């Protein structure tokens, strides 16, 4: 047989066709007794319904965590999770934290050194010393 095919898997490009939000679950933990949860309780009562309605892609769980500081935990598609302690925060600040968890990709934070990352080959190609105006010694 002159040519064989090599089995491969097409790689995903999230956002090129469809976009899948990477945050799949948010857990809200509160305490009924402790003062550090005051903002969290107000957030759960007033802001969370609209937040959940605006983000139907995210499964939301609310559960108590007695005698502890309130926590928001995000679970991501890559299997990682991020937790933010929201003790003594105002409801607006908690809403910002929830948004932060929603928009995160779940990856560890990395420093990006290159402005562009691409899986496509460079159009210009790699410079070759053997082509063009060759200099002879």
């Amino acid at each position, binding site marked *: 047989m002159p*040519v*064989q*095919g090599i*089995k491969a898997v097409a790689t995903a490009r999230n956002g090129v066709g469809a976009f899948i939000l990477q945050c799949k679950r948010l857990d809200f933990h509160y305490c009924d007794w402790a003062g550090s949860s005051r903002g969290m309780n107000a957030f759960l009562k007033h802001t969370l319904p609209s937040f959940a309605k605006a983000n139907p892609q995210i499964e939301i769980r609310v*559960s*108590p*965590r007695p005698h502890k500081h309130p926590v928001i935990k995000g679970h991501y598609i890559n299997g990682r999770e991020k937790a933010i302690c929201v003790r003594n925060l105002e409801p607006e600040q908690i809403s910002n934290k929830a948004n932060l968890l929603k928009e995160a990709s779940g990856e560890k934070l990395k420093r990006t050194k290159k402005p562009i990352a691409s899986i496509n080959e460079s159009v210009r190609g790699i410079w070759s010393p*053997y082509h063009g105006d060759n200099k002879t010694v």
Partner: protein
Amino acid sequence: MKRLQLQRWSSSVLSPRARTGGRLQQHLYYSLRRQSTASPALQVESEQLVDESSLNSSIPSSHIRQQPKYILPSPPVEAARESAKLAALHARLYLPSRLPLETLARALVDPSADSNSNFNNESLATLGHDLLTYYTSEHLLCTYPRLPLTVIFAAMYAYVGPKTLATMTREWGVEMAAVPGGEVDPGLLQFQRVAPGTDLDAEPVSNTTRPNDSRMSWRKSMTSRIVYDNEFGDPSKAPVEPSQQPTPGAQSTQGVTAEQASATFVRAVMGSIYLHAGRPAAKRFFEQHFLSRHLNISDLFNFSQPARDLSRLCARENFEPPVAKIISETGRKSRHPVFVVGIYSGQDKLGEGAGASLLEARSRAAVAALKGWYLYSPLNVRVPSSMEDEGAAAWKPVHVDLGEVIV
């Protein structure tokens, strides 16, 4: 400070579906489940249940709802509306609102979990598989009319093969249930797992559509692979006669791998979109989730003798016979020489390659020339299924090639 285990003490607050219950309850469930799989009496009962509900073809009546859920092999239909996971998955995939949650829940039930075809995703998956392979093959054949068939098989596998579909399931954030059952959250992918320690490659492939499939040493020609095998060039299972099929409700002992179950799920989603939202929505879903994936087709070639193939190709196309010429070189007598060789047919340069030896550079150049031929892609390609759109322009025939080189 000692860390509290959230899962343990927050269980009472979580929805009853999120957990299967306390340890005692769990024990009770498991013992009951074991009985239900072992004793025929309970099984018949559950079968009757399912048959009744399928006959009524409505949401099971109240007397069924009183039955404990763990008797059912898969979650009841009305549980779909209560599952947060399922609703989140529906929204995450931007599925059309005409596709109800109940159908999505059904797409998540593998035939190995629930053998009743009214409640599992087998029929949806069959339709979805046909649609996926149709759309992919027409895209490949029209976009790259000169691809050799082995490469088309590999490209089909890369776009809609089971491995890719399993990867997609993971990327969609679908979680898998440990064990299928009626009390499980319907947002989880449910299938009977293969028993640990099972050797999947142990038994030889038998009962295929190919004649003489027991003769392992016989050569499989390309033509026979087109006729007998499936769209990936692999042997396909022969359809079982209806009289020999296991009766619905009978507990299937054999499980499936997570990859197979995930692939069936993705196909079932495609089929259910087609059924509920129509052809345009299904096609859009295919383009957004499947065609948008990145696949470099030039990486799928594996040539054994490229120089020979190229000379055969030139003879067939009435080109002048190919000649390899050195374009430039350096360090011929050194430890790491570099040769740049071009392959010319008359005045035309067909391909160019660099290598550490003359032979290597020549074969790389021949590979480049062959890929340049095979990867020809016409501009403004239309696929046959685009004629199904409303007000489509008149069809212009697409490029049909002579085919690959036969050596």
